[in-house]
């Protein structure tokens, strides 16, 4: 089983995030950069699959030069190799362009599974896995809270608003996993050392046959016109409980017509 796990480098989800004033894209320097938390679940799930049935896991990331650190970080959980797609022309790409680049980077490499976390903690769109599946013409097996592989077949539990759907398809397939599908492991010292030496392919857009003009801020099909910080909330009422707090909350709820 050959598995590719796509990871995104994002601002730390516990930090304040900002847009850059100059071109209204994510300000990547404003916070520590980490592997998107939800992608770690995909790495863990991939490792569990190859541990049970053999194979190897490759980590892929599309992003600026610093994203190479996130590829190594993800490899150190126990993956074998990395692919880093980096090109200045990518700056400001929308999901449509990102999915194009990922699809071009993974196709023809013989992957049985292409795995993602169900969303990134910065953009939170949850659209790239579905777009990559559409571009590759592969079954889309997304929002999985359970993944089972049996021979050439994959079945998942797909999270829905009422519970979950059991869905099956053949391999190869594109999979996204939700938070808490597993407990991502901490990298062992041995794997951290191995990750430093793991083979890493650095790929440019021209290597992938993608024109620079079809990606980036200028090619995006959407445009951010303006942004602003949420205005600070006007100070509310704040009281110390002297035994009458419940009565005062009740009064407030009545005044606001909630009860």
């Amino acid at each position, binding site marked *: 089983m050959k598995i590719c796990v796509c990871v995104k480098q994002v601002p730390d*989800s*516990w930090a304040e*995030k*900002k*847009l850059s004033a100059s071109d209204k894209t994510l300000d990547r320097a404003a916070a520590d950069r980490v592997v998107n*938390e939800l992608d770690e679940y995909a790495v863990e799930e991939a490792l569990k699959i190859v541990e049970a049935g053999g194979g190897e896991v490759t980590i892929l990331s599309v992003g600026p030069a610093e994203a190479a650190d996130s590829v190594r970080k993800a490899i150190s959980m126990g993956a074998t190799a990395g692919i880093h797609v980096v090109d200045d022309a990518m700056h400001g790409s929308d*999901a*449509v362009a990102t*999915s194009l680049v990922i699809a071009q980077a993974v196709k023809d490499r013989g992957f049985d599974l292409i795995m993602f976390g169900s969303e990134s903690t910065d*953009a*939170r*769109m*949850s*659209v*790239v896995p*579905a*777009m990559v599946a559409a*571009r590759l013409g592969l079954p*889309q*097996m*997304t929002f999985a809270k359970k993944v089972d592989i049996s021979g050439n077949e994959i079945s998942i*539990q*797909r*999270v*829905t*608003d009422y*519970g*979950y*759907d*059991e*869905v*099956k*398809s053949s391999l190869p397939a594109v999979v996204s996993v939700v938070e*808490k599908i597993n407990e991502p492991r901490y990298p062992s010292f041995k794997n951290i050392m191995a990750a430093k030496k793991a083979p890493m392919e650095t790929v440019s857009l021209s290597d992938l046959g993608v024109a620079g003009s079809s990606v980036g801020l200028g090619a*995006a*099909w*959407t445009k*951010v016109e*303006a*942004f*602003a*910080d*949420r205005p*600070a*909330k006007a100070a*509310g*009422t*704040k*009281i*110390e*409980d002297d035994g009458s*707090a*419940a*009565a*005062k*909350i009740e009064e*407030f*709820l009545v005044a*606001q017509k909630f*009860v």
Partner: protein
Amino acid sequence: MSDVLVLVEHANGEVKKVSLELLAMAAKVGTPVAVALGPGADATAAALGQHGAKKVFVDSSDLYANEIVIPVVSALAKLVSDNSPAAVLIPSSSNGKEVAARLALACNSGVITDASDIAADGSVTQNIFGGATIVTAKVTTGTPIITVRVNSIAPIASGGSAEVVTFSVDHQPAKTTITNRVAVEKSGRPDLSEAEIVVSGGRGVASEDGFKTVIEPLADVLGAAVGASRAATDAGWYPHQFQVGQTGKTVSPALYFANGISGAIQHRAGMQTSKTVVVVNKDPEAPIFDLADFGVVGDLNTVLPDLTARIKGRK
């Protein structure tokens, strides 16, 4: 005015509230036209017409229940191609976002997710970074595909009726098969992402028992959904699917009750667009008080049971 297509979410013909909200949103941009797909779709027209839909495209084929995402995309792509609508509005659920994703590629159109408002000129308001930043954005290529967050606008009961137009689609062979649908046991409480009122607990609730004896009774007397901070779900005090935050659910209820929650970014990101916020916390310095319309520095174990009893006493 141009048509604005609204993808209807329904359970065997029972229309979800979010679909009625989307019709109200569509009316700000053009003429609301609903699209109802799958078993029961033909039973949706009355409710949709009453809430502003001028027309409902209906295809009740079972096929929509047998494969995820793709059949819905094929149907919408056909309607976009045949009718050139001004925009397509889709509920911002996980499924809805994936429909939007593939529809964008199918129609060579830009996609914007998690809209909280759409202006008449099609510019979209989004609350990003957990609501810390408010963005206006526009689709610049193709037919705008926009997913809209639940609770962004109130449904409008206009009392009209909708013309029903049945249609069918040539679908591609399925790549995935839904073999079973499993409904998780309902708590009897409203759905967390749709609820008008959410009562949440955090580290200060201190135990699973605290959720059962303090948080849930208050939620029930208010007819509210129960939420939890990551600290509480990580500790195993409340099931993970009720986590509100950066990872977890984003909610925007009329009233959010934060109890024993300090208000780390992780949590604020999931709830700071709530209209009214009430806070009970022992720590007067807790950052959650910055969001509070009404804040109490006190012990939730005494304040909340007292409040629950008082509200119960009013009924």
